């Protein structure tokens, strides 16, 4: 049966979060999103829908963006997680964060962390020019209920253009 010792209900996980070693005992049903917010108190990562539709909880796991609400904390064991807190510091803003500020790409800010992480992956994984259409496609999995997206697209395109 599933209460056999081969199946566990809690586990010790060891991982790197924003470059820092973390060791914690977690319930196996703990979502990575809740682990980041509740256990590690890193609250830039937001949880909107809990089923992968809104994109607010997007983080980088082992070099690739993931929905932290669709990943268990135990699945990050031995891995590396980067949240928005790992993107530069408030005194030395990441170019994307700076561009969001300059283009007023934020209203309530709830979706911003997921937007920035998805945009960062797009910039890092795309060679050559990035069109507004390209950005719209890449960000189509990140919902914003305030801005109407135009300023967000402008902000990402401006960073892409400076990079070329």
């Amino acid at each position, binding site marked *: *049966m*599933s*209460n*056999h010792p*081969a*199946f*566990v*209900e809690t*586990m010790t996980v060891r991982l790197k979060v924003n470059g820092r070693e973390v060791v914690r005992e977690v319930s*196996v*049903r703990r*979502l990575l999103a*809740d682990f980041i917010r509740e256990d590690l108190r890193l609250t830039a990562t937001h949880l909107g829908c*809990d*089923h*992968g539709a809104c*994109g607010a909880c*997007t983080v980088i796991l082992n070099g*690739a*963006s*993931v*929905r932290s*609400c*669709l*990943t*268990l904390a*135990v*699945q990050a*064991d031995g891995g590396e997680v980067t949240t928005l807190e790992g993107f530069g510091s408030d005194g030395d803003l990441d170019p994307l964060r700076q561009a969001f500020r300059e283009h007023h790409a934020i209203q309530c800010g709830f979706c911003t962390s997921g937007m920035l992480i*998805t945009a960062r*992956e*797009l910039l890092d994984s795309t060679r050559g020019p990035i069109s507004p259409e390209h950005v*719209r*496609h*890449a960000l*189509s*999995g*990140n919902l914003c209920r305030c801005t109407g997206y135009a300023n967000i697209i402008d902000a990402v395109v401006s960073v892409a253009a400076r990079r070329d």
Partner: protein
Amino acid sequence: MKPAPFSYAAPKSLEEVFDLIELADGNARLLAGGQSLIPMLNLRQLRPAALIDLTRVSELSRLRREGGDLHLGAMVRHSEVESSSFVAKTHSILGRAASEIGHAAIRNRGTIGGSLALGDPAGEFPLVAAILGASITLRSRTRTRAVSAADFYFGAFRSVIEPDEILTEVAFPALPPRTTWGFQELCRRPHDFAIAAVGATITFDSHGRISRAAIGLGGVDETVILAADAAASLIGTEGTKTSIAVAAQAASLECKPVSDVRASADYRRQITRVLTARVLQEAVEKSKAS
């Protein structure tokens, strides 16, 4: 919305997976990429007693070629299929189909085996597997069997996988020479669930006539289906606008779409005709270009 309590195991080999399946005695779910299973757990649509996480079973993540056939392990991620030059070299339709699944963060986790095992009638991989005549390998501790993709589903989200089996691999046969393909789907928002999806391969003989065709329809029936009449109508033609229109019309009559919150049955049928014409045109144009 958090998963109900479950117990968990993360085996490293298939042998261990079989041990755990036996121990769990029908009460466990296999966790592949989790992009459909975890939402169902979060919404508490499913409350399995245990999860067997396949992430660390490295033998399930292999890509290899045997003869001209492309074999993809069940845990190969959508993003890998999308970007792999190894895959694109012989089966570029797979990368195209993978690129339509969810969003980047979903494709980075979701797996081809998970998608095939789930059997969403609008799923991209069940659709291309049917079109390409793929063979899906199921293994239990005592037996290994290969099931053709066309015989794999008997209803929405219902497949022939037995409780003691695990989907380990899918093999895509080499495409015959002078074969081109088309793939398109209609979504309200880019990368959302498809209202309808259509894919096709066509093979021309040395005289420029179609000698072989496969047309697959997704999201417009209980399972993904092959539009056999539509494909047959193309044989011997040169893929002209007229023959494409005939095939598209036939395809729209071969499916049994339902009405739901996304679209009415009539609209789906109409879209099936339009998309079929477009993918066939896409395939014909590619053959002219090559």
